[in-house]
């Protein structure tokens, strides 16, 4: 294999594939990136952790077609440190790959291309297209609520399903829930309910930064594939049943608070400064024209801030984890957020308005 490629192009693409590669591997080939130069003038880069696989092609000047695999993180670090604007020459033969750029030369150990594992996609009967912007929105507004709790592995991803003739995405960690509802794309009818693992969500979001237009989504009950122009991301799905989350979305919270999400978030952030690291509980006293945020820390002292608001029901005191509250407020785009309250121990509903695509449920803290 012999190919020449511009450093910036190679670096960007390696940036995508190297993060799929786990830092620690017992199987050596999984530390490697597959490089495949073809005569049509393209270099294909591929990486996998056996659950998630990224496959990307970039243009390159190929003088000899061929394929090899080299350690992904080392190769990435080398290319990162090469001078800007340099042309990188890759040539592989006899178990080594030489990397030449300017006056620098590296000889990397390779492993045979044939040993590189590829995820068998199988049949992916459901196919639809989603605007990249919609997919970005789905991810941004739900991913923070994905659980890290391994004992409930089925919560460790974004749940994607069709209901009420809409496409819905939901994530929860048992303390908060985020749901986004979008138009059902053509072709999504009859799709199986799927749970997209967190790592796939993270890699997909990174790739989406560089995509305009649409993304091709193909899926079965066990795998999903995202076609993003030059890159294809394929992932196994979480094999589990996502709980019926509609049960925890309150429908009868009759106390409505309206508040500016930006000043609300800034106030929460400020008073939380003195909260002890672990709990970060913020107390909210809700009155007719304001919310009084306060934190009392036995070690640090007291912080209080008033934020203007509009509220027409009986006064209420309720506590929240500051981090959770800020995660949600960060995703509110307009200048008002609706906070639907019931009491200090009941699920609270947050949304921009009743026709906004995103909806959040947050459980309070007992303070």
């Amino acid at each position: 294999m012999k190919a020449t490629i511009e450093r910036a192009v190679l670096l960007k693409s390696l940036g995508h594939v190297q993060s799929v590669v786990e830092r620690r591997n017992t199987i050596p080939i999984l530390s490697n990136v597959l490089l495949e130069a073809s005569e049509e003038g393209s270099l294909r880069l591929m990486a996998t952790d056996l659950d998630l696989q990224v496959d990307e092609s970039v243009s390159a000047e190929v003088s000899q077609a061929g394929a090899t695999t080299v350690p992904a993180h080392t190769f990435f670090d080398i290319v990162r440190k090469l001078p800007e604007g340099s042309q990188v020459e890759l040539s592989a033969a006899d178990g080594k790959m030489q990397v030449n750029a300017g006056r620098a030369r590296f000889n990397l150990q390779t492993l045979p291309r044939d040993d590189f594992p590829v995820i068998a996609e199988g049949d992916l009967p459901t196919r639809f297209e989603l605007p990249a912007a919609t997919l970005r929105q789905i991810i941004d507004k739900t991913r923070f609520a994905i659980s890290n709790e391994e004992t409930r592995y089925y919560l460790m991803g974004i749940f994607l399903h069709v209901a009420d003739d809409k496409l819905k995405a939901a994530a929860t960690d048992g303390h908060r829930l985020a749901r986004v509802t979008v138009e059902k794309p053509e072709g999504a009818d009859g799709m199986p309910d799927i749970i997209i693992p967190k790592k796939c969500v993270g890699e997909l979001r990174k790739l989406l930064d560089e995509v305009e237009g649409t993304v091709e989504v193909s899926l079965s009950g066990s795998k999903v594939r995202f076609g993003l122009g030059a890159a294809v991301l394929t992932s196994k799905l979480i094999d589990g049943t996502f709980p019926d989350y509609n049960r925890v979305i309150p429908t009868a919270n009759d106390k409505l608070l309206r508040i500016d999400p930006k000043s609300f978030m800034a106030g929460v952030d400020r008073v939380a400064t003195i909260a002890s690291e672990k709990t970060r509980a913020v107390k909210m006293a809700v009155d007719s024209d304001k919310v009084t945020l306060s934190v009392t820390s036995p070690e640090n002292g007291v912080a209080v801030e008033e934020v203007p608001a509009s509220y027409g029901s009986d006064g209420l005191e309720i506590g929240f984890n500051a981090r959770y509250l800020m995660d949600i407020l960060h995703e509110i785009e307009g200048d008002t957020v609706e906070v639907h309250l019931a009491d200090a121990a009941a699920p609270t509903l947050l949304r921009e308005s009743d026709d906004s695509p995103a909806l959040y449920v947050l459980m309070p803290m007992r303070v």
Partner: protein
Amino acid sequence: MPDESAHPQRKIIHIDMDAFFASVEQRDDPSLRGRPVAVGGGHRGVVAAASYEARKFGVRSAMPSVTARRRCPDLVFVKPRFEVYRAVSQQIRAIFAHHTDLIEPLSLDEAYLDVSEDRHGLGSARAIAEDIRARIRAETGLTASAGVSYCKFIAKLASDQNKPDGTCVIPPSKGPAFVAALPVSRFHGVGPKTAQKMERLGIHTGADLAAWPLAELEARFGSSGRWYHRIARGIDDRPVRASRQRKSVSTEDTFGEDLIAHERLAEELQRIGERSWERIEKADFRGRTVTLKVKFADFTIITRSRSMAGAVGKKADFLRIGQDLLAQLMPLPKPVRLLGFGLHSPVVEEEDGPLQLGLEI
């Protein structure tokens, strides 16, 4: 002779409850008295504790239930009641606290006490040990054995000497001779594999061990060599640490032959996990990180761990996470000689802090 120049004479007691779990069960259920009893067991389980009647048949703790049943067909299996064992453990710790604040619990049924102070002027450490044993008998209806000496290492060996319901005092002048006569396999820090290795080198007793120069022991046993050299001379300066908090509880096992098949390793992991969980419960340890250690045939070691949001409280979860960690290593690049499996990251309960409520999902 022990080096005492730097420190005044210490008086240390090791208290060990006699067949603790089994004795509690026999105390609370008269029909079990005089019969061979094993606490634990169940399907694929292991024996957590065996009564003295069961021990006569060769039933030991950590033995698979099936083996125990084979050795003693009349064995009665009883489900462990950890809340009761914990309550009794609190009772005996209160008795210890009457004599000293320097209490280092090793598990629910075992502790080191430093009674150098002789708070109530009983005159000797033996008298304090006898007082503690009498109070334990009066308040809990159970018996304990005590080892009394000038260091932890010998106190622990001594408590085993006149078991059950006995006391053994080893004064400093008798320490080295006491150690010299014992088989090395009983020494703290000498596990089954090290004992085998020592046997091969002709080291059977403390006296054999004492004959080896430090440099030779370090060459053969690495950093442990220094410890073996000292204990063979009856020297152990480790203090009784009252504030000791366990960082982890784990169990590991070296296999008779190196293994590579997933199925075999999964079986071994299950077995080690059962034992490890018994120890976690016995130590009353609450941790949130499950750790799997794999030592390959070439002695390279890898560890894999997974952390939960809170303490791992169920055996089924612990075992499942361990199997998950193992499955993720498949296929293995080389055969495995040892697996270790345990719980890390102690969880300290916050009692009055703010409480995050959960969605009913």
